[in-house]
């Protein structure tokens, strides 16, 4: 039995679509369901339903063998996970957001930068000619520049609609964000044949890159 951790957040639909396109049915799994743990004995899979930010911990600790998680979350945590493939669907971008392109300071300038991703933000700022005080928030990041808590925000942008509605602009795309298949190192050794089969089928279905 292999344990697959699926995220509750925006990546769940992309994950289910990719697995099903690859012929891994996950039958009986209902995206709207509330079950936290579901055994699929016919497929030899047990599904864990986890919050995005907890999922890498479960996989890293070997409680789940593998999972699907966004590269935004992965980049924020210092985990030692295998990342064999990235899903094509569900991609978005991580961008610097502000009220105008002029929100970015000139060389030597200092701003406040609101984000859910403080480690990623620190790495980004380290490469810039300006400095920033990182303001860690857990949601509604867009409000920070709107209300003046911070001049800039670093956050996920999918369609850009939230930004437009709040009179914000996407100043710079910092990274492409993709849902990733992550695998525990020891689990890869133990379930190598099955995982290679899954990855091969995902590749053949052209739902990953």
């Amino acid at each position, binding site marked *: 039995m292999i344990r697959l951790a699926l995220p509750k957040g925006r990546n769940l639909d992309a994950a289910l679509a990719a697995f099903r396109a690859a012929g891994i049915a996950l039958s009986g799994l209902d995206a709207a369901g509330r079950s936290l743990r579901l055994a699929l004995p016919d497929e030899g899979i047990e599904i864990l339903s986890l919050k995005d930010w907890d999922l890498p911990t479960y996989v890293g600790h*070997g409680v789940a063998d593998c999972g699907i998680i966004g590269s935004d979350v992965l980049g924020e945590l210092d985990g030692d*996970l295998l*990342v*064999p493939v990235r899903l094509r669907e569900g991609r978005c971008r991580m961008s610097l957001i502000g009220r105008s392109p002029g929100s970015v300071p000139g060389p030597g300038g200092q701003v406040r930068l609101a984000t859910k991703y403080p480690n990623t933000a620190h790495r980004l700022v380290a490469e810039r000619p300006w400095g920033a005080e990182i303001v860690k928030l857990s949601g509604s990041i867009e409000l920070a520049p709107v209300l003046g808590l911070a001049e800039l925000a670093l956050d996920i942008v999918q369609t850009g609609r939230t930004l437009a509605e709040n009179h914000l602009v996407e100043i710079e795309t910092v990274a492409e964000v993709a849902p990733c298949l992550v695998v525990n*190192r*020891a*689990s890869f*050794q*133990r379930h190598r044949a099955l995982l290679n089969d899954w*990855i091969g089928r995902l590749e053949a279905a052209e739902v990953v890159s």
Partner: protein
Amino acid sequence: MRVSAALPTGVAALLFESARRRRDAEDRMVSQLRGARYAEAILPILDYLEPYEELLTAAARGELYRFIDRDGELLALRADFTPMLARLLAPRIESLELPLRIFYRGDVIRYEEERAGRQREFYQVGAELLGLPGEPGEREVLRLFLELAGLELPGLDGTGKPGGALQVVLGFAGALDGLLLAADVDDPLRLAAAVARRERGEVRRACPSLLRVVEDGLPERPEDLGEAAAGRLHGLLALRDEMAGRFPGVLLSVDLAEFARHSLDPRLSVAEGERPYYDGLVFHAYAGAAALPVGGGGRYDRLFRALGAELPAVGFSLNLERLLQSAEARP
């Protein structure tokens, strides 16, 4: 006054039964090590930082607890026994009778991000075999490692409940250097990191001949690695088969992708890893149903060379608490 029983992040107190369990396990290991004629070294928990400055990678430096002593010396808490033992022995090597078999036990303290299963203080038992070059040294150390782990994870020798309780992944430093340097990429270090993470897209774009290593841990043909590395791979596969015969309860695999960042070529040896001194056999072990990393080891002749001594060296360490935890089944 009511006092709090809280402890700092990453440390734990073992009381009563849990303390007894650990001491019992430690006693069994020590008696096995003494039986194999390994002699104990007791090392300090505080040491100067300066002798290690040249040996530390950024990752290893980031783990250290460093501070300034009252006399102004820069000190560090013990984060790794192996370099400490090496720097104490290197200047005395001519007066020592070789081969030398040494074991140690004690706490190491490393800064770790707060997350499940990562303690900042943990108890290690380890052994070093000095002065025995090549495969005989590696065979002895790997066998001793499996015997010690088997004291807490019964069934590794094939008696009793069968296998999967211990997984050991074997490789050797520099195995993929030839393929990594031959790849058409600007940054072979980045490619090595992608191989170690088994990122297929990046590896396929940069070096299709590494794809097979990423999938199966081995190249399509050993010769793909170059003559010297192919010879080493044959030797390692034979060692694996020998150990698999002796310990049928252990899942032993040779996987070169796992150790892609352990390189020998100077162009690649800006290693990101935490234990960058391995230059021959390298191995990691995972135990129990949750496959906790419980230890590992390898050959590290170049550590002595960096300290001015020519001495073949191979060793391992086991994380005792993780090993005991791993004996509990995954729910």
